[in-house]
């Protein structure tokens, strides 16, 4: 079901959850099983799990993943001895975790293994490329749950989002928040290639800046945009085109800039990617109505949404209704409940 959406189109796919227990691992295992049935070789890594083998909130054991022969996996030097699979070590990388260095290996005899990976976007990208070069058909990245630290979406060619009852006891609220995230993932990227070049460089250096219509950057001498929105606002003028925010963008920041931006409708706020935006659905609607322009540098390609109608806290939604309603609101992206069975 999911593999059809992915195979042949994307080489790197990451799976991210809206919260813990959204069924991210179910989705991962689902794709692994489908790949096995089609004799595809997968690469598996996880985005910065950083050694928490136990989920501290729910006290559930982090899942080991069954890997087939030939799969290329990323794990760590300290997790490897606990692996049930026999793994041929291919490379020990320089990326460190609290459970040793990240290593890449090939599964010689299938079995369960705990996958791991680097924490930074650059590291994840680097390790996925290494795995791809070792000759796999597709790399799956088990993305972090926490959006703040999730670098995986922006470096993968495709993203699968897992959402579920655990997000909120109110089903409509879950749908609303999911739709909101889908909207954020759909924020268009900056198109102008000259602007992309200039802004990309500023972001790499972590510089808050205002770029004018001639692509000249006015770098503002402030460390964090969080408390300095006034300075940003005061520097906007008729020539300004882009406000470059290399870090997080919150509702308060946009509110603070409103009075300035209102004067200059041509100005776009640019963030690295949608995972850096922390604005509630209500506020987002309001900003869009006023006509605030927000763009990203790295677009996120959301290709599927998986649902888990059950929450480990004991409540649940009617699976059929949950699926039907979600599909009503998210029309252009496939929505599936992997446990409910296919249609």
């Amino acid at each position, binding site marked *: 079901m999911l593999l059809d959406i992915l195979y042949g189109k994307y080489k790197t796919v990451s799976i991210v959850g809206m919260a813990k227990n959204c069924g991210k691992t179910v989705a991962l295992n*689902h794709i692994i099983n489908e790949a096995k049935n089609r004799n595809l070789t997968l690469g598996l890594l996880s985005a910065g799990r950083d050694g928490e083998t136990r989920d501290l909130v729910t006290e559930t054991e982090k899942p080991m993943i069954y890997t087939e022969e030939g799969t290329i996996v990323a794990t760590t030097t300290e997790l*490897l001895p606990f692996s049930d699979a026999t793994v041929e070590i291919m490379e*020990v990388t320089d990326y460190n975790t609290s459970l040793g260095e990240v290593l890449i*290996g090939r599964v*010689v*005899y*299938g079995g369960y293994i705990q996958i791991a990976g680097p924490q930074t976007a650059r590291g994840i990208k680097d390790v996925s490329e290494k795995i791809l070069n070792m000759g796999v058909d597709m790399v799956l990245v088990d993305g972090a749950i926490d959006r703040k630290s999730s670098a995986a979406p922006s470096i993968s060619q495709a993203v699968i989002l897992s959402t579920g009852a655990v997000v909120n006891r109110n089903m409509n609220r879950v749908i609303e928040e999911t739709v909101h995230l889908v909207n954020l993932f759909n924020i268009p990227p900056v198109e102008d290639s000259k602007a992309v070049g200039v802004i990309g460089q500023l972001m790499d250096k972590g510089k808050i800046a205002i770029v004018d219509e001639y692509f000249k950057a006015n770098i503002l001498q402030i460390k964090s945009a969080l408390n300095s929105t006034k300075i940003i606002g005061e520097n906007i003028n008729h020539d300004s085109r882009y406000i470059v925010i290399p870090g997080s963008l919150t509702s308060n920041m946009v509110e603070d800039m409103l009075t300035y931006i209102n004067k200059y409708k041509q100005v776009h706020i640019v963030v690295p990617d949608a995972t850096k935006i922390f604005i509630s659905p209500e506020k987002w609607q309001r900003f869009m109505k006023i006509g605030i322009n927000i763009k990203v540098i790295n677009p996120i390609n959301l290709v599927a949404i998986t649902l888990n109608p*059950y929450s480990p806290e004991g409540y649940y939604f009617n*699976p059929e209704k949950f699926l039907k309603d979600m599909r009503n609101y998210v029309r252009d992206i496939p929505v599936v409940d992997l446990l409910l*069975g296919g249609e």
Partner: protein
Amino acid sequence: MDETAFSSLDFQYILDRIEVVTPYGQIYKKKMRAYTPGEEAKLNGELNEVERIKFLIEDREFLRSIKDILESIKDIRNSIKRMEKGGVLSDVELFEIKKFLISIRKLKSALYNKEKTLALDYNIKPLEELERLLDPEGTSLPTFYIYDAYSKDLKRLRQEIRYLQGEMNKERDLLKKKVEEELNLKINIDGTLIVPKDKKDLIERIKSYPHLAYLGENYMTIKYALKPTDKMDNLHKQIQMLKGREEKQEEIIRERLSCQIRKHGKAIWRNIAGIGKLDFTMAKAALALKLDGVKPKIISNHSLIIKKGRNPIVEELLKEKGLQFKPISVELKRGVTCITGANMGGKTVSLKLIGLLTAMAQHGLLVPAEEMILGLNNFIRTSIEDAQSLAKGLSAFGGEIRAVQQAIKISDNRGLILIDELAKGTNPEEGYAISKAIVEYLLDKNSITVITTHYDNVANMEGVVHLQVVGLSHADFQELEKKLIYSQKDPIELINSYMDYGLIEVNKDAQVPKDAINIARIMGLDLEIIELAEENLKGKAGYSGETRS
């Protein structure tokens, strides 16, 4: 070289530019020390080697090939030490050792044909027996796991497990199909089934159905899972048992491998040392290449000759501004040499250059000069005022006296003593008296002493060699001033570009050059003051006469 000399000569700058890439090269760098009298032959051997490698690495491709290999070498010392004490190596450690062995082989072949040029034996010897041990299937790949080839038992166990797992999967698929057919529904990929509670008939049927087990329920649905058949239970038990045996087998093999590697412990250490030494010597050669260094000639006689020496630190600073360093030549013997010259005339630069190049040579480094001839020193002591001595809270004079006293204490032990602006921090009369006394005392001591001073009469003492910085004396001041008016340059930079740091030996009647007023004029001191100063100089010619004994 003590801490004061180390910091005032900026020796750290040189150390930072010796860029070793392996953890083993780092050890050699840390152990780096100065060679002292009696070790001339050893130092010569090392300098020759650095020169040879410098010649080799002028071939960029060769340098790159060696560096690529060195950069991939990780620190395996902890694993080796643990193993030597009887520890069993983990798969990751065995992998790292295998990679180390491969690196040794690559290094050996990269050095092939070059070894005749190298005098030192780096003991880089491939350990083929160990390589074969860690590559039992002869794949030559830099990867590792406990290969099937290590033990027939292990291979049999693994194949049996694989077979049983296959049987297990078949059995599960059969069961799944059977249940799906019998109940006319679809089982999830993970073997579970979720049934809405309103399908009462189905639930009733499952209650008595032998192949589904109840997992849990909520208000709306019940969750079931496939119930393993007896055959599946048996298979599962067998697989678990075999897995246990597989693990034991693997551990036995790890022990065996560790034991065999242990026998080669010494050879591994020799290779580690060889890599460290090669890395370190190459880093020194690379520095020499960067600084355009030459091999100093080491002689037994205690003397010091530098021809067209350059101070690499000042040179780099000037280069950034597009300026060139004017090389300095100097010949020094046992006894006292005084350097005199105008302010900004680079007396201190000369002094530091003498100390730095000497320290570099004695540490086995090539020196930035056209030629250097050196008789080794037992020590280098400096009294050069710098930011650090000021930070320690000593007054300029106090610090100076302390440094000078430390040098004087060991002045008969064949060393190099460098003193900048002796006693300048005190009143001229007493300063002169102290300076003169120190020079008198050091004149017949077993050290080479270089002192920069403003006092003519110290430099002109009997037995003291007097060197003068050429300074601006050759410069056309009118032209300089014109330039100043028309160019946007900072006057300090302009003066620097006209400044000749060269030293010339003058006879003992020579006057200390008087460039200070000229420089003050260029720097823009009020003309009225300049004129007054010139008047004063004429009228007060007697001032220096007073102190001229």
